[in-house]
C-alpha cells in the first residue's frame, strides 16, 4: 500500500499544481477531478475494467504536464493524415495553436476553437455541458484529465445548421526539450444542436516520435435529430501511451456514428461510451486497429440503450502481428424502458503471428423483454482454404494473403464517408501492414 502511494506521489504533486483561475464552476470541476483521482489512484489488474491491460508503465513513470506549446511549423503536420482538410483546428501539447489552424467560412453561430477561450467567451454553453458526461467520479484517467486539462477544443453547432465541410481536430505532441517525457491532458467538447449536421475527425499524432502520454477526454452531445459523423484517428508515436475516453449523449432521433482507427501507440486504451437517451436515437461504433511488436491496444465500448426504438451497430476489427496484444470489451446495456432495441455487435481479430493475442468479451445487460441483441466474435488466422483457392487461380501466397488482409481491413475503411480521409487512412494502414508482413516473411 505504501508503495502504491509512493508511486502515486508525483501524480498527486502534479494535481496539486493543477491549473487555477477561471470561473468558479471550472475551478470546482477541477477540484472534484483532483479529489477523485487522489481517492481512486490508478486502476490495477484487479479492476475488472483493466484486467488485461497493465498500465503500470504509465503509472510508474513520471511525466511533465506540458506547459507552453513548443513552436511548431506546418512541416510537423506533413505526416498527419488528412492534414489538408479545409477546416483544420490544431492543438499542440495540450494547447490550441491558432497559427496552425485554419477554418473556412463557417455558417453563422458555429464556433470552433480553443476550449480555454470558450470557457469565458461561451460560458453559458460550456458550463452547462463540460464534465456532464465524462465519468470522472469513477474513472481515474478521466479524473486526472478533469483536474489537469489546460485547454482543448470546443465545437458548437447551433440548431439546424448543416456543415458541408468536415472539421479536422488535430492533437499534436512534439518533442518539448523537457527532461521528462510530457503528458498532454486534452479535452474536447462538442455540442451539436437539434437537427444539426456535422462530420468531424479527431487525430492524435506524435510526429517527432518518442515516449509521451496523451490523456484525452471527449464529450459529444447530439441534440434531437442531429446527425454527427465522428472519426478518431490514433496515430501516436510507437513509444507513446494513449488513454482516451469519448462520451456521447444522443437525444431523440439523433444519429451518431463514431469510427476509431488505431494505428500507433505503445499502450493504447480507448473507451467509447454512448448513451442513447431519446427514442429513435441511433448509434454506430466501428473500429479498426493495427498493432505489432509488443504493443497493446485495448478498446472498451459501452452503449447504453436508455430509451425505446434505438438501433446500435458496432463492428470492431483488429490485425495483430508480432507479440502484440489486444483487448476488446463491448458492453451493451438495454434498460427496462428501452423496448424495441436493435443492437448488433461484431468483433473480429486477425492474428498474423502465433505470439499475438486478444482477449475479447461481449457484455450484454438486458432488462427489457422486447429487444433484438446479437453479438459475435471471431478470432483467428487467415483461412487456409481461401488462401488455397486464390493460389489455385494463380496468385502467389503473398498476393493471396495481402488480398485477404486488405479485404479484412477494407470492410471498415469503406465505411469512412470522408473520401480524402479514407484514402489517407488506407495509405497509412497498408504501409504499416506491408512493413509488418515484410518482417514476418523475413523471419
Amino acid at each position: 500500500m505504501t508503495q502504491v502511494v509512493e508511486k502515486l506521489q508525483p501524480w498527486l504533486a502534479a494535481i496539486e499544481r493543477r491549473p487555477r483561475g477561471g470561473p468558479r464552476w471550472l475551478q470546482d470541476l477541477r477540484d472534484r477531478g483532483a479529489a477523485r483521482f487522489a481517492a481512486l489512484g490508478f486502476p490495477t489488474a484487479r479492476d475488472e475494467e483493466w484486467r488485461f491491460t497493465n498500465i503500470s508503465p504509465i503509472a510508474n513513470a513520471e511525466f511533465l504536464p506540458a506547459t507552453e506549446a513548443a513552436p511548431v511549423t506546418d512541416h510537423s503536420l506533413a505526416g498527419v493524415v488528412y492534414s489538408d482538410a479545409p477546416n483544420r483546428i490544431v492543438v499542440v501539447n495540450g494547447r490550441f495553436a491558432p497559427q496552425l489552424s485554419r477554418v473556412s467560412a463557417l455558417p453563422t453561430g458555429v464556433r470552433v476553437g480553443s476550449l480555454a477561450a470558450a470557457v469565458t467567451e461561451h460560458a453559458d454553453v460550456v458550463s452547462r455541458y463540460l464534465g456532464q458526461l465524462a465519468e470522472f467520479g469513477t474513472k481515474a484517467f478521466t479524473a486526472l484529465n478533469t483536474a489537469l486539462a489546460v485547454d482543448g477544443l470546443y465545437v458548437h453547432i447551433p440548431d439546424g445548421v448543416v456543415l458541408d465541410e468536415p472539421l479536422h481536430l488535430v492533437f499534436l505532441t512534439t518533442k518539448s526539450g523537457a527532461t521528462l517525457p510530457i503528458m498532454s491532458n486534452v479535452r474536447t467538447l462538442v455540442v451539436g444542436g437539434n437537427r444539426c449536421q456535422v462530420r468531424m475527425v479527431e487525430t492524435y499524432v506524435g510526429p517527432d516520435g518518442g515516449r509521451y502520454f496523451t490523456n484525452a477526454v471527449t464529450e459529444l452531445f447530439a441534440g434531437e435529430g442531429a446527425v454527427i459523423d465522428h472519426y478518431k484517428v490514433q496515430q501516436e508515436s510507437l513509444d507513446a501511451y494513449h488513454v482516451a475516453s469519448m462520451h456521447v449523449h444522443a437525444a431523440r432521433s439523433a444519429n451518431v456514428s463514431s469510427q476509431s482507427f488505431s494505428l500507433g501507440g505503445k499502450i493504447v486504451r480507448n473507451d467509447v461510451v454512448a448513451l442513447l437517451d431519446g427514442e429513435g436515437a441511433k448509434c454506430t461504433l466501428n473500429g479498426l486497429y493495427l498493432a505489432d511488436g509488443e504493443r497493446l491496444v485495448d478498446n472498451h465500448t459501452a452503449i447504453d440503450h436508455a430509451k425505446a426504438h434505438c438501433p446500435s451497430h458496432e463492428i470492431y476489427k483488429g490485425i495483430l502481428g508480432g507479440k502484440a496484444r489486444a483487448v476488446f470489451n463491448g458492453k451493451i446495456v438495454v434498460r427496462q424502458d428501452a423496448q424495441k432495441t436493435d443492437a448488433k455487435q461484431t468483433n473480429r481479430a486477425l492474428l498474423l503471428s502465433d505470439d499475438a493475442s486478444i482477449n475479447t468479451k461481449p457484455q450484454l445487460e438486458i432488462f427489457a423483454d422486447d429487444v433484438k441483441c446479437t453479438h459475435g466474435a471471431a478470432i483467428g488466422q487467415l483461412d487456409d482454404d481461401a488462401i488455397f483457392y486464390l493460389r489455385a487461380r494463380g496468385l502467389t501466397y503473398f498476393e493471396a494473403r495481402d488480398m485477404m488482409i486488405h479485404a479484412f481491413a477494407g470492410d471498415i475503411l469503406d465505411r469512412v464517408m470522408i473520401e480524402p480521409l479514407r484514402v489517407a487512412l488506407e495509405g497509412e494502414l497498408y504501409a504499416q501492414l506491408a512493413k509488418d508482413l515484410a518482417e514476418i516473411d523475413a523471419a
Partner: protein
Amino acid sequence: MLDIKNLQVTVEGKQILKGINLHVNAGEVHAIMGPNGSGKSTLARALAGHPQYEVTGGEATFDGKDLLDLDPDERAREGVFMAFQYPVEIAGVNNAYFLKAALNAKRRHQGLPELDAMEFMQLIKERSKLLDIDQSMLSRAVNEGFSGGEKKRNEIFQMALLEPRLAILDETDSGLDIDALKLVASGVNAMRGPDRAIIVVTHYQRLLDYIVPDYVHVLSGGRIVKSGGKELALELEKKGYGWIETGAQPVGA
C-alpha cells in the same frame, strides 16, 4: 499433355490413391467416375496442389514438367485449372478485382501485357454471356452469398477467362438443377478445343449427357479399375458401381 504414373496420395495419414496411371492428350475429354470415397476428388485436388493432399509416391508431368514440384499458384499460371467442388467464399474480396488479379498474374507469367480495367471489362462482358453471369455477381465478394448454382457457374466463368490448357472439373455437377447443369455444360463445351484437355470428375452419368467424354475411367479403392469409351458411363448408369467393385480386376494390380 498430362502423364500420371503410379500416383499415390495420402490425406491426413490415410492413403487414398494407391497407384493411379492416366495419360491425357491435348484435345481430349476424360471422365473420372466412381463411387463415393473412391478417390476421385482426391485425384483432382492433388493435381491442383492442395496442401492437405500429400503425394507419397509416383509422378505427374504436365507438358513434360514435373507438376508435383510446382506450388499450386505455379501450376495455375502454367495452365492447370481446377473447378472446385466447394468454391470458397472469400469475404471482402471483390469478385471482379480477384478475377483481374488472377488473369493478370497468368498474363505476366506468359510474358503478355496486363489488361487494364477497360480491356478487362470488355473481356468479362464477352465471356459472361455464355454462363449467364450478371453484373451483380461480379461486384459481390468472391462466392459470398452465391447460390450453389451461381458458385459453379462462377467456377466455369473463371475457367473461360483464364483459358487453362488443362481443366479439371471436380464434381461441378453436384447440386445443380437441370437448367444450371445445361448452362455449365455449354460453358465447358465452348472451351473444348484441340489445345485443351478436360478432366471431368463426376459421380453421376447425367453430366456426361451434356459433356460427352472421349474416355471414361472408373476409380475404385484408389485405383483406376476400368477404362473405356463414353459407353462405359451408360453402362455404369444402368448397372451401378457394384459390378465394377466386385467383378473387375484392378488395372495394373
